[in-house]
């Protein structure tokens, strides 16, 4: 595969919602390239007709009984919030300049 470009890493950072410095982007170009190259060897393995594994447990999913349980108190949860008001989380404005 081709090398990671500055723009490509910047685009991934935007998708991952992480602001990165120029220096971090340069480091990641190199690191991602190295890691992707090292995992590329799996493409040699024959996987035709093989089903993907999403969960290593082979047992059927076991659901608990559909009865109401305990939940955490709103006040207790809000104590950990960066900012709250009237029993709600306060967030920065959603609409920006874009």
């Amino acid at each position, binding site marked *: 595969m081709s090398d990671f470009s500055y723009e490509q890493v910047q685009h991934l950072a935007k998708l991952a919602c992480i602001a990165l410095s120029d220096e971090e982007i340069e480091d990641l170009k190199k690191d991602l390239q190295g890691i992707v190259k090292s995992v590329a060897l799996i493409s040699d393995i024959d*996987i035709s007709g093989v089903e993907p594994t999403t969960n290593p447990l082979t047992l059927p999913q076991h659901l608990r009984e559909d009865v109401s349980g305990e939940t955490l108190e709103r006040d207790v949860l809000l104590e950990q919030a960066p900012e709250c008001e009237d029993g709600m989380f306060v967030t920065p404005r959603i609409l*920006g300049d874009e």
Partner: protein
Amino acid sequence: MMSGADKDEIVTLTASQMSEAMKKGDLSSREIIEAELEVAKAVDPKTESYLATCFNSAFMVADAVDQARALGQELPDLAGVPIVVKDMIVTKGVETTAASKILKGWVPPYDATCVEKLKENGMPMLAKTNLDEFAQGSSTENSAFHPTFNPWDLERVPGGSGGGSAAAVSSFESPLALGTDTGGSIRQPASFTGSVGMKPTYGRVSRYGAISMASSLDQIGPCARTVEDAAMLFDAIAGYDPKDSTSIPDFPSSALKAAKEGKKGDLSGIRVGIIAEAGGEGFSKDVTDGFLRGVNLLSSMGAKVEEQSFPHFLHGIQIYYILMPAEVSSNMSRYDGMRYGLRVMPPDATAASMMAATREQGFGAEVKRRIMLGTYVLSSGQYEKMYVAAQKVRTVLIKDFERAFQSFDVLVCPTSPTTAFKAGEVVDPVTMYKNDIATIPANLAGLPAISIPAGLDSLGLPIGFQIMANRQKDELVFKVASALQEAVSRENEGPIWNKVPRLWKSGEND
């Protein structure tokens, strides 16, 4: 105040010896916690195993246990035996950070199910242990707060991510610890520190309250100095939990019984497969030699040992470094500065710019690297080619194991290709990832696996021996490990864990 000799004696007891001594009335839980506190004061500045301590609440639990015992109440075996908990597991009222700046100061409003079980068993929790940030690393150098050092040689790493739990147990700061294992984070640190670390079958221990890293791979498990102690702790935390839909229902555990059975040293009828590919290039000669000595001990106890070729074993690491970052990138998306944890407000902040700035400042380099890698493998151009392909190769690897378990009861290989390396020695990510080459396959297949010390290398550092079994055969893992541990102790004139320097004595390994 206790004399120095008393303290030495108390902290070097195993968990089961502590339990027996308390039952007989020779020792109180308070005396144990006092001794551990004294040792922690002297040792923790050297190993830096702990992120936070909670001795005050530990003394309260200890006193309650001592009182109940004085009244003649029936108590669980582990009542009064202290434990430390990896800071990847949430503890009500005790700061839980996952060794990340993004969670600094977060005090969880609930307990993980396994922590509830520790409380039900009357176990005093002494501390939260250090780890690589969000359990992402193999040396505990990636903690946002400080690295942890190996009690066998303070210039070396204790392995990772659970280096804090392993270092605490092996340096006698605690007889028991809880860890989490996604690709080897319990077993590789056990290997580096001469302790015992066990990753249960996926689903045997509830993951509720374990901070998610890669949900199809994560498991909580026990860390201890002996197999018997690890088995006792396993029995205490295993079992179905309605709060974890991947936990296995109706499956009582009997690990301690199995460990005691194994101690007798009779392995006749047990078929042992040596994984042929987990050797050779990358594996040090000392590790290979130590491993083979362990294999000979298994044969001498009647096990039938044969080499087994595992065509896809070494591909495990490649599958892992596609699937794990994908799951990491998804699980880390919850840290957005909205409801808890760090919030960084850039000038004229919007929700999006606040999130990006918070994640920039809150996450360390390795976590960012894995989120970025995961975002890449899940992106539309790579999803089929990388992510789905890796899921299919995961199936191929699982089929290798299924075939092998038709001919073998357990599979064995070195836990880690080398013994503990020096702090700062491994900087390249891909080189660091190779530490987990032999531990990752068990996570991909959901198998139970244990690491116990097989001996020491030419530098006097512990060598880890890994035993894996088929899903839900955790008890068999404990049985074989217990037999091997006894044989290794006989050969080395005493247990390996007992050969570590006593760091609270001045002049030892300073």
